[in-house]
């Protein structure tokens, strides 16, 4: 029952929270750039507008793939909020991302193709760290079950600071922020136009936006898990982490894929690996 409640809450409230968070993000970003910025609800306006636009497609496959992308992202979040296996969350997330990549591939257009390649590279960069996070939770909390991880008395951050750092590092990739917004970015001043979303227009693009909200909330939930024993602090810290991501976004240029891949793997190996080692010894 509790699990159902969690799933229900996630499906309903995650896009709302994610949308407002994105709106705030845009205001804060604008202020950091000396601009005034859009209204808070701008993200919702954007998505609603996209639903009113013509559904312009190259072929009818990518709409389907994007729909799957959204579904699996929701499934991934639902597993998390139902308190199930952490690894399963990551795997479902991978499936979701894979559908996004396939959607971009299926359009068979140069820019979205390169975007898809880069998205694959980003997944390559991110996935080890996410799995290591799961294993870290297992070693620190004794279970892969999120329900169990949440119920551990002390904040897990003290046991796994290295993994936390690694996760925050790759979080930048996942929530598509500079310096790692390789495959697509919100403001498309990029060498590959809009990357893998180049060919998505109108309602299909709206799906991507909504999925992005879900993804943001999901990623911040990962952060939250480190502070799960103090929910209020956890939420505040998750928001703080998001704020830090915004700052990083605004103080870094976009780097190249080589750097993204190498640095995130090194961080994963170094911080994640060493942290795992210590956890293993302590156990």
């Amino acid at each position, binding site marked *: 029952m509790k699990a159902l409640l969690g799933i229900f809450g996630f499906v309903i409230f995650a896009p709302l929270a994610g949308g407002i968070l994105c709106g705030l993000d845009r205001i804060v*970003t604008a202020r*950091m*750039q*000396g*601009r005034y910025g859009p209204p808070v609800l701008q993200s919702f306006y954007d998505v609603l507008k996209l639903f009113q636009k013509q559904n312009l497609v190259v072929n009818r496959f990518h709409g389907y793939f994007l729909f799957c992308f959204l579904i699996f992202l929701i499934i991934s979040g639902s597993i998390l909020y139902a308190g199930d296996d952490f690894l399963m969350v990551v795997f479902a997330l991978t499936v979701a991302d894979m559908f996004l990549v396939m959607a971009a591939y299926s359009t068979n257009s*140069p*820019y979205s*193709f*390169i975007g898809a390649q880069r998205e694959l590279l980003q997944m390559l960069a991110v996935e080890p760290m996410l799995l290591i996070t799961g294993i870290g939770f297992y070693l620190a909390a004794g279970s892969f079950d999120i329900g169990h991880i949440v119920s551990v008395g002390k904040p897990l951050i003290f046991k796994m600071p290295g993994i936390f750092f690694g996760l925050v590092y790759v979080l930048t990739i996942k929530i598509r922020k*500079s*310096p790692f*917004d390789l495959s697509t*970015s919100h*403001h*498309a*001043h*990029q*060498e*590959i*136009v*809009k990357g893998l979303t180049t060919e998505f227009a109108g309602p299909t693009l709206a799906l991507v936006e909504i999925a992005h909200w879900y993804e943001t909330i999901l990623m911040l939930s990962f952060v939250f898990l480190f502070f799960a024993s103090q929910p209020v602090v956890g939420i505040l810290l998750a928001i703080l982490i998001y704020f830090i991501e915004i700052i990083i976004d*605004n*103080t*870094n*240029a*976009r*780097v*190249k*894929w*080589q*750097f993204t891949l190498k640095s995130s793997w090194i961080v994963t190996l170094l911080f994640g690996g060493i942290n795992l080692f210590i956890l293993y010894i302590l156990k």
Partner: protein
Amino acid sequence: MASRTIIPFGPQHPVLPEPIHLDLVIEDEKVIEAVPSFGFVHRGLELLVGKKDFHQMVYIAERICGICSMIHGMGICYGIEHIMKIDVPERAKYLRVIWSEMSRIHSHLLWLGLAADAAGYESLFMHCWRIREKLLEIIEATTGGRVIFGVCKVGGTRRDIANSDIHGILITLKDIEKDYQNISKVFRDDYTINHRFSNVGFLSKKDAFELGAVGPTLRASGVSVDMRKTGYSAYRHLEFEALTENSEDCYGRCMVRVREIFQSFNLIYQAAEKLPNGPVDIKVTGNPEGEYFTRLEQPRGEVVYYIKGNGTQNLERFRARTPTFANIGPLVRMLSGCDLADVPVIVLSIDPCISCAER
């Protein structure tokens, strides 16, 4: 087992404010071959000499390019004055220097912003342009236009800066310079900027010279060529050095521009200090007859105008060889072997002004 990707890059492309097209052949994001294409902005305005008289040609020359408009206008005036042996009043010369240095600052700030944007550094882009806007206000207050200056005319300048205003302008400029100081440090030291600019678009000193690169592109490869050193207008009375960098890459080109902005501020201060009193223009009678190659230093580099008059109201030939045009050869050379992500950075590193290049 890499496989090739052949894609078009532009003409409509978000990182390129102006249309330029490249056929890119890439392999794992490594550019194997890049063939540029032109003509999206080609208007053919050099032929307008047949329709417009030489006074009107000044307006047209200013609209070769909106960013370099001041020096385009100045170049054609300078050439015609030379042919007609007009001696421009000293004050006009100093005013021209002040405005052309302002135009250099605004152009370089614009470039810095665009380069940051091409590297995906949106906030830096915004801050560069925020500072630039302040300067544009001064430009507008003194010339009447934000981007098209429209102050040069044959025989002097069209407007004067009142001596009483100069003090206020200098104070504002110093404010701007202070503000800019922070930004320049970001360009100099920021890690990701270094990552994106260093060792990208390598152009050796020898190549740069032989391929006929001009302006910051040439100077970043360690060749000290700055047409202002020929001493046109009031430059002969001012102290400055041609700035060079030895890193021979995009970072060097960026640093040359970063430092030139300070130099330009300095030149404006010097010129304002030395600004003589007197008229700003003299009356021009008669028509030009003869030919002259004018060479000036634009923000983007050396510009060459060939002006040929035949004694009528209309010039016989007006040709502008703009810096971007000269930098296309080096650009093609730089592009081979770079990463796809570097393409916009490299293209921007020559500060392309396509409407200049194609006229």
